């Protein structure tokens, strides 16, 4: 049918905008980089970006159901600490260790989901409290920074593929292909969008609301633990850092917003959030390229965030009935 194109564009507008903005920023970054865009520069940039991108994916899954996960960074830290114990030794032990970490993350997510669904607590309060618990567990695992990780696996995933492509990008692609795309196309993923968009209409249409939420929270925990693993591969240690946890939680929300995902739920995609995350990272690096004092970097990031958030308010100009403002 003709016109598929334009409808596709409309449906993925947020994602495409995020992609375009990222490409633009990255081009500026790459062409102005003093050392040029060599493989090492790209790899370092990619590793930082991918880490945030994975956390942002995790956040997206929950946000799509019109929830929020403020424990996502803490799950990452917990996974990091756990991985620094388990992901060592022979290939078999390493594999088991990775699985353990992934399982732990999923359990964390599932706990959030169960409390939100059956305890009927608000996601924001629930995840604040569970975040504290997850951080406590992380701290129990690593009172002081330390531990180790299977170096060959770590190097493989944080290094370069033949041809100089950062391996982390391949990991990210794999995650999108294995987790996000099937989820997006499954009935349960569809249900998550429906719940986030209009819970009443979803109920009227016979959508499994509880199952959709549970799967979203659990998968979110799983992805957060992948981020934790990746953090371990970058740092080679486990560290129960509260600052890391809360920073990544906050940045993940920023990435989600920049990536065109609606915080009211129901619209946007994890791919958008990934570009949002990469964009957020590039903003920081851009200043470095232009020799602006690094001191200005956080302020610049903040201002960009404020501007991005305000852009969402353009829709207010179209509102003709003021009661629509008060849901």
């Amino acid at each position: 049918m003709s016109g598929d194109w334009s409808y596709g564009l409309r449906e993925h507008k947020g994602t495409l905008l995020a992609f375009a903005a990222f490409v633009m920023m990255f081009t500026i970054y790459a062409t102005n980089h003093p050392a040029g865009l060599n493989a090492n520069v790209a790899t370092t940039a990619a590793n930082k970006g991918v880490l945030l991108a994975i956390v942002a994916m995790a956040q997206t899954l929950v946000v799509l159901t019109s929830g929020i996960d403020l424990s996502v960074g803490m799950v990452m830290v917990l996974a990091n600490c756990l991985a620094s114990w388990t992901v060592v030794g022979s290939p078999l032990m390493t594999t088991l260790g990775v699985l353990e970490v992934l399982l732990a993350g999923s359990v964390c997510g599932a706990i959030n989901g169960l409390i939100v669904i059956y305890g009927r607590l608000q996601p924001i309060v629930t995840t604040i409290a569970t975040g504290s618990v997850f951080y406590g567990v992380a701290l129990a695992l690593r009172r002081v920074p330390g531990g180790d990780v299977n170096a060959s696996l770590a190097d493989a995933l944080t290094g370069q593929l033949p041809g100089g492509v950062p391996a982390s990008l391949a990991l990210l692609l794999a995650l999108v292909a294995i987790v996000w795309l099937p989820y997006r196309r499954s009935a349960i993923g569809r249900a998550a969008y429906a719940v986030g968009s209009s819970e009443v209409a979803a109920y009227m249409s016979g959508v499994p609301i509880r199952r959709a939420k549970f799967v979203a929270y659990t998968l979110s925990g799983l992805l957060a633990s992948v981020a934790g693993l990746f953090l371990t591969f970058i740092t080679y240690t486990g560290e129960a850092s509260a600052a890391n946890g809360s920073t990544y939680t906050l940045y993940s929300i920023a990435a989600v917003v920049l990536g065109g995902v609606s915080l009211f739920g129901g619209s946007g995609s994890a791919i958008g959030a990934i570009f949002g995350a990469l964009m957020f990272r590039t903003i920081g690096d851009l200043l470095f390229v232009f020799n602006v004092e690094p001191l200005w970097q956080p302020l610049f990031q903040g201002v960009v965030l404020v501007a991005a958030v305000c852009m969402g308010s353009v829709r207010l100009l179209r509102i003709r009935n003021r009661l629509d403002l008060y849901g």
Partner: protein
Amino acid sequence: MLRGRLGNMCRHVDPAIACAFGCIVVVLLIGSLYSTNFLSPEYLLQQLKVASFLGVIATGMMIVILLGQIDLSVPWVVAVGGMMATAATGWGPVGEVLAIPVGIGCGIALGLVSGVGVAFLRIPSMVVTLAVNAVAQGLMVVHTGGFSPQDSSSLAMRFIATGHTLLGIPNALLVWVAIGAAAVFLLTRTTFGRTVYAIGNRERAAYLSGARTRTVVMAAFAISGGLSAFGGVLLAGYASKAAQAMGDPYLLPAIAAVVLGGTSILGGRGNYLGTVAGVILITLLQSILSVMQMEEFGRHITYGVVIVAMLLIYGRGRRHSD
């Protein structure tokens, strides 16, 4: 007659507040098993002094939560309050005088920005306060050059944070009492307070009743910003200087204290007495866990579990969609 009145009173006591006060007693009793010091006036006053800092910050948070919103900009607004006050002290004698107002004023300004975003641009408060937090952080990094500021706090700041006046009562506690009394007055005796509750219950109905909902929302965020900054001023006075991450440990406890005190996170329902109980409970919990030499990890876990458990008991009932 008497029974009727008692029944009335019982009906008016929020079970969550009763529960929070009950927990305080339990915590104190458990503590006294470890050391008799726990029930000594000195220890209790010391705890109340520590609680005052959280109490001031939680007061602002409570007003915002009553609206059905949330303020995630606490960490860096606290830091802004502390840093700008100490910076002002460095200006000389005039600065000494202006230190406290400057700190609070900066917090109010940041709160106003959040308020405009929430009230006029209808951005979810979670996002807008997050963004304001990032901007505040950016401003402070530029201001301090990325190091902990060298300016120390003014005499007045130290006096209100660490001094004692009558009967050995810490000044910080008196400050909290004053702010608490003002908050109670604001919430129960003024049109502003009534409107805050109305918006939290049903913004649509409040708007249709001709309340100036946007002004009130904006003012509430300004108050929250100002009180967070004031908390920062007190903390800077307590530690005699400001530090980069000084506000970080206050965001989650502030929210937890408000919610544990029976204020609904969806807004519209809550009592300042509950927040007082929540603040004291959290402070005591932190203190007793460290006195019991429970390791930090245990404190975090207990903390989270206690919050979830209490909310599961009292926090449910009202659903988002009703």
